[in-house]
């Protein structure tokens, strides 16, 4: 399945003309590891693109090269038709950046922090307006030290947005937030998408990528191993559904017995749990039960779920995103 998605072809024909982001043959090695290994990518204007991958996959290095904070060893980076060498001053005015783990000064208030960042941009959004859209009105006079994790993240988002950026980078925007704060931030990103901004985000949460991104690139070991819309990627697994079951005892199980059933695309074992990728759940499941019974295999567990990007990652790498 991996081969179908490895070539970084644009999802739509229109974006080839003047993409928001263009990466060609990007490579970056550190002393002990090759963080980015020959990466190609195009992101169209107005698109919300997600780089999904486990920790250490090279997402942050990639996004920091795009942001002009790290220089690549080789390869081309073009943002909005400009590159960092020639167009740094202009690019800084036109993009917005939210970094992982920035701590704003504790003793500055929300409003003062946003005002400071606003002053760096020639043109931008009114401070009042940005406080409102980040839903920080009640906290405007509060010092940063007293904010919750979600509020701090919304402040970081506000500082990334004050320049009214055409292109917005969000590096792990919801890492470490509780579920409610995450959903709150997702709503904020939805608003930005509606406003037509190009957004590039990294995440290691597949639900976040599925929820927010028009297109997703799955990264592992410095390479994009799959690229497409969440739906495309999920269907690339071969089935929209995943059946998971475990057998009692330790019978000699032959997957070939089940793979003959129409609609079952693939089989793999993860930690003693059998996983089947299934496209026709309603016809396949009764047949699975029949086959198992015919062979005298007894189920100790059985469940199904819709395939997710997690399943895509598992089928591509054989590892789970969480513990990869």
């Amino acid at each position, binding site marked *: 399945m991996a081969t179908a998605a490895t070539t970084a072809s644009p999802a739509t024909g229109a974006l080839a003309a003047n993409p928001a982001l263009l990466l060609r043959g990007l490579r970056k090695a550190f002393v002990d590891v090759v963080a980015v290994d020959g990466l190609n990518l195009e992101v169209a204007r107005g698109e919300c693109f997600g780089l999904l991958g486990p920790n250490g996959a090279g997402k942050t290095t990639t996004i920091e090269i795009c942001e002009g904070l790290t220089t690549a060893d080789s390869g081309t980076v073009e943002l909005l038709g400009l590159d960092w060498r020639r167009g740094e*001053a202009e690019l800084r005015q036109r993009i917005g950046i939210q970094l992982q783990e920035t701590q704003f000064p504790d003793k500055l208030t929300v409003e003062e922090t946003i005002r*400071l960042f*606003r*002053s760096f941009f020639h043109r931008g*959004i009114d401070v009042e307006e940005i406080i409102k859209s980040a839903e920080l009105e009640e906290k405007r006079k509060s010092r940063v030290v007293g904010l919750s994790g979600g509020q701090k993240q919304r402040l970081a988002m506000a500082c990334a947005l004050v320049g009214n*950026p055409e292109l917005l980078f969000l590096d792990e925007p919801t890492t470490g937030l509780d579920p409610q704060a995450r959903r709150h931030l997702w709503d904020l990103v939805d608003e930005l998408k509606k406003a*037509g901004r190009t957004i590039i985000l990294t995440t290691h949460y597949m639900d976040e990528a599925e929820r927010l991104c028009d297109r997703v690139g799955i990264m592992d070991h410095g390479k994009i191993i799959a690229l497409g819309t969440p739906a495309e990627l999920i269907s690339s697994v071969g089935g929209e559904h995943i059946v998971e079951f475990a057998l009692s005892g330790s019978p000699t199980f032959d997957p070939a017995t089940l793979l003959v059933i129409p609609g079952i695309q693939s089989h793999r074992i993860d930690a003693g749990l059998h996983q089947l990728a299934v496209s026709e759940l309603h016809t396949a499941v009764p047949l699975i039960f029949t086959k198992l019974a015919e062979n005298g295999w007894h189920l100790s567990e059985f469940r199904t779920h819709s395939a997710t990007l997690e399943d895509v990652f598992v089928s591509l790498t054989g590892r789970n995103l969480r513990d990869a």
Partner: protein
Amino acid sequence: MPKPKPSSSVLTGPAASSLLQLTTTRFRLFLREPEAIFWIFVFPIILAIGLGLAFRNKPADVYQVGATTPHLAKSLNTDRVLSAKVIDEPTGIHQLATGDILVLAIASPSGVTYKYDDTNPDARTARLLADRAVQTAAGRREAVHADDNLVHETGARYIDFVVPGLLGMNLMSSAIWGLGFAIVEARQKKLLKRLVASPMPKWQYLASFVLSRLVMLVIEVTIFLGFARIAFGVPFRGPIWQLAFLCVLTSLAFCSLGLLVAARAKTMEAASGLMNLVMLPMWILSGVFFSATRFPAVIQPFVRALPLTAAIDSLRSNMLQGLTLSQMRLPVSVLLAWLIIPFFLALKIFRWR
């Protein structure tokens, strides 16, 4: 192609100057740090009060002396600066040892013997006075008539000496701590990285520190010197604008050194170790509390090359001796060198991430 035009957003043009915003931010952060205010504004005054009390000028000292006979004691007491009591020789020797008396005058068949410690300047003075009193009482007449005309000069007291020293030390610590800590903290918290990811001109970030330091300097120096003037009558003999210039130059030189110290350190611990390493030799060698000339000649070139020595020398030359800048070319050049060299070195090696 779709241009992001958020429907509800109010778009505005250039906001307030970023340099002004950055400088204001520095002020806010400083004023919200009560400890910093104490160390920079209050501590030097407390120190000056303490030293002023300890070294305040007393009326001319009366020297305690001993005499073995009443006649001798009577002769000694004719000098108002001497206070003599009659004691026997063993007690007198004991009191000499404990410092209760400075000189013991022992009557002997041939005249008088003075017992005293000649390494103690007070004892030597008392010995001279005692002998004069004894000789006068015995009938010696002055060969040359002499009159005393007393002056009590401000500017020669210890407090006059130590105020420029404290001023220099304060200018050093506020600049080095102020810049060093703030910059390294911002680096440690990845705020520096966030700032360079924005369109902020990097020079403005550094300039905001210098600007806020200069404004703070006016407040800090005015309070401290004003206090020294009113409470102790410390003199200002040189041109005031030159004193102001020296304070600014000193502060800038130490800002530059602070910038260098903070140029690469990644943690507060590393930074604080470095700052102490830089400042400790100057606390000891640069003549804050006593003259730096007391150190051996071999290390004098090193002592003279320290920025704090140069700062304090020139502040003293201005305030106490009333010298002008043209008469203190050497310390001023040393300060200029400390301003320029560390600044460019710091810019070259500065770590923004």
